[in-house]
C-alpha cells in the first residue's frame, strides 16, 4: 500500500506539471486552432531564465525565499515575452494560410529556440538550485517531498485563478467569444489580435511556472527538456479534450498517474512509450478527448 501511495503522489506531482503546460496548448488551440509546437521551448526558456536569475542572486547573497520569488517572477515575465514575440513573428503573418503552413513554421520556431538556448548557454546538463524551502510534512514526508507539495499547490492556485479570470473578467469573456467564433467576435468589437496575444502570454506564463517548479524538483535542466515535456503536455491536452481548460488539467493528472503506475508496476524502461501509446490510443478511439466535443468539419 505504501508503494501505491508513493506512486500516487509522484503521479500527482508529474501530472500537475503536465497540466500547467497543457493549459497553454489548449488555450492557443481553442482560439486559433494551432498546435503551438514552440510551447515546450517556452517552458524550457522559463526554466533557464530562472536558473540564470537565481545564479546571479545567489552570487549577490540574497535569502532563499527572495531568490525563489524573484526567479519565478523573472521566468514568468520573460517566458510571456517570448510567447508574445513568437506569435507575432511566426504565426500572425500566417493567419488564413493553409493549415500546414503555421504548423511547419511552429516546428521551425521550436528548433530555432532549442538551438538558440544551446548556443547562448550550454549544451550540457546544468544543476538547478533547490529553490523551494523544506516544509514540516510529518508522516506525509515519505510519500511526497516538500517540492511536490509546492508543485501541487501552485498548480491548483494557477488553475483556479485562470478559471476565475476566464469566467468573470471582461477579457475572459472576450477570449471565450473569440474561441467560439473569431469573426463574430471581431464584428461585435472584440480586439481579436489583443485576445490572441493575451492567450499566448497567459499560456507562456503558466508554462514558465511549470518549468521553474519541475526544474527545481528534478534538480537539473538542459536545452532539450522542452521537447519531451511539450509532447507529453500535448498528450495531456488531447487526452482531456483539446480546447477545454478543465480537460487539460484532468488530462494532465490522468497522464501523470498512468505514467507513474505503469513505470511502477510494469517496467521503468519504457516510461515514455506509455505516454505515446496512450496518445495514439486516445486519438484512435476518442479523438475528441474526455471532456471535448467532437468537431464538425466545415467546407
Amino acid at each position, binding site marked *: 500500500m505504501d508503494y501505491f501511495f508513493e506512486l500516487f503522489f509522484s503521479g500527482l506531482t508529474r501530472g500537475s506539471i503536465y497540466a500547467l503546460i497543457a493549459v497553454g496548448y489548449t488555450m492557443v488551440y481553442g482560439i486559433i486552432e494551432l498546435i503551438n509546437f514552440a510551447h515546450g521551448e517556452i517552458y524550457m526558456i522559463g526554466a533557464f531564465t530562472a536558473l540564470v536569475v537565481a545564479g546571479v542572486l545567489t552570487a549577490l547573497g540574497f535569502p532563499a525565499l527572495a531568490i525563489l520569488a524573484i526567479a519565478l517572477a523573472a521566468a514568468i515575465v520573460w517566458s510571456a515575452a517570448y510567447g508574445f514575440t513568437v506569435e507575432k513573428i511566426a504565426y500572425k503573418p500566417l493567419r488564413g494560410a493553409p493549415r500546414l503552413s503555421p504548423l511547419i513554421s511552429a516546428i521551425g520556431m521550436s528548433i530555432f529556440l532549442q538551438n538558440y538556448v544551446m548556443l547562448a548557454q550550454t549544451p550540457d546538463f546544468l544543476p538547478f538550485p533547490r529553490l523551494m524551502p523544506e516544509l514540516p510534512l510529518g508522516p506525509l514526508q515519505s510519500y511526497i517531498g516538500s517540492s511536490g507539495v509546492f508543485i501541487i499547490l501552485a498548480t491548483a492556485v494557477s488553475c483556479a485563478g485562470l478559471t476565475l479570470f476566464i469566467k468573470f473578467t471582461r477579457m475572459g469573456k472576450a477570449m471565450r467569444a473569440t474561441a467560439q467564433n473569431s469573426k463574430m467576435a471581431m464584428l461585435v468589437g472584440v480586439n481579436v489580435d489583443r485576445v490572441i496575444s493575451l492567450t499566448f502570454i497567459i499560456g507562456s506564463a503558466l508554462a514558465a511556472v511549470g518549468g521553474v517548479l519541475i526544474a527545481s524538483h528534478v534538480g537539473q535542466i538542459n536545452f532539450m527538456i522542452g521537447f519531451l515535456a511539450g509532447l507529453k503536455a500535448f498528450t495531456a491536452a488531447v487526452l482531456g479534450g483539446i480546447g477545454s481548460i478543465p480537460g487539460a488539467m484532468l488530462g494532465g493528472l490522468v497522464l501523470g498517474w498512468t505514467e507513474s503506475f505503469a513505470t511502477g508496476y510494469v517496467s521503468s524502461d519504457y516510461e515514455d512509450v506509455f505516454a505515446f501509446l496512450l*496518445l495514439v490510443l486516445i486519438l484512435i478511439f476518442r479523438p475528441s478527448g474526455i471532456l471535448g466535443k467532437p468537431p464538425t468539419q466545415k467546407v
Partner: protein
Amino acid sequence: MDQFKRAIITSVWFMFLTFPLMVIRVNTIEKVVQWRFMNMLYVGVGAFIFSYVWRYLLSKRQVGEQQEEAGAGGKAGFLHRLSSDRRVYAPVLAGILVAAACFPLVGTMYQVNIMITALIYVVLALGLNIVVGLSGLLVLGYAAFYAVGAYTYALLNHHFGLGFWTVLPIGAGLGAFFGILLGTPVLRLRGDYLAIVTLGFGEIVRLVLENWGEVTQGPSGVSGISRPSLLGMKLSVSDSTVYMYYIMIGLVLLTIFVVNRLKNSRIGRAWMALREDEIACQAMGIDKTKTKLTAFALGAAWAGLMGVVFAGKTVFVNPASFTFLESAMILAMVVLGGMGSIVGVVLGALVLILLPEFLRDFSLYRMLIFGAAMVVVMVLRPQGLVTGQRQKYRVKVKEAVAAHE
C-alpha cells in the same frame, strides 16, 4: 521616420528579450557569474536590421498577393522556362549526369562519402515529399521508417548473414508495412493530430530500439554489417565506397523517375486533390483512406530502402541516428526546397547537406539556421525555393471542334 521608430522599438525589445540568456551565464557549482555585454550590442544591431528587412519583405509579399489576385502574376520564373523547354533542359540534365558519373574519378574518398550521404538524403526527401508535399500529410516521425530499414538489414545480416541485395527489397517492404500499420488507425485524424501521432510513433520506435536489448543490442547498436557485394566479389573499402556511390546514383534516378511518373498519374492527382480539399475530393469519388494509405506506404517504403543503404554504407547502426532531429532535417529539406516540386526537393537536400560541409564553422549554427529558415520560408515564400509545377494539359481546339462537327 515611422519605420525608424519601429526599428528602434524592435531593437530594444529584442535586447530585453535576449538579456538573461545571451548576456548572463552562471556556473551554479562555483557560483561564478559571467557577463557578456557585447552580445547585447550584436542583438540590438541585428534586430534593428531585421526589423527593416522583415517589414520590407512582408510588404513585398502583400504586393505579390494583390498582383496575383488581379491576375497579373502569371509571369513565369526563370526556372519555369528552363524546365518547360526541352532544348534547354535536356543538355543541362545530360551535363549533370556526366558530372555525377565522373565524380568518383576526380573526388577524394572523403568527398565521395559525403556525396553518398547527400544522395541518401535526396532520396529520403523525395520519399517524404510524396507524403508531405504531394498529399499534404505532415509526418514528423519519418526517421522511424528509416530506422526500420536500417535495422532490418543490420539484424538480418548480423544473425542470418543475408546480403545487401537480398535485404534491399525486404527493407522497403517492411518500411511500407510499418507505414500501413501506423497509417491505418491514424489517417482519419486531421493534419495537426497526424503530425503529433507520427512524432510519437517515431519516438516509440527509437525507444524500443534502445530498450529491447536482447534483439537490437540496445543503445550500443549493431556493428560489423557487411558492405554490398558486387557479383560475389569482395571489394576493398575505397572500391566499395565508389560502388556504393554508383548504387546511390542509380537509386536517385529510379526515385526521380518513379516519383515523377506517380505525380502525373491518376493516384498522384488524387493526392494533390486531397491536399487541397478533402471534402470536395471525396465528393468527386476519391477513396480518401486508400489514397492516403498509398501515399503513406510509398513514402515509408522509400525510407526503408534508404535505411538498408545507410546500414550498408556506415556498417554500423544505433538508435541515436534516428532521433526527431533527423526527421526534422528531412522535413526542412522538403519545405525549403519547395513542397511538391521534385527539382526543389533535390536542391533542398543537396544544399542542406553540402553547405555545412563547405562551411565548417557553419555546422554549429546549422540547426539554428534551418529552424529560422523554416519560419521565414513559411511566412514569406510558402512554395519554397522552387515552385512545384502542375502538369498542364492542352486541348487542341481545332481538332476538337472539327471532331464535333
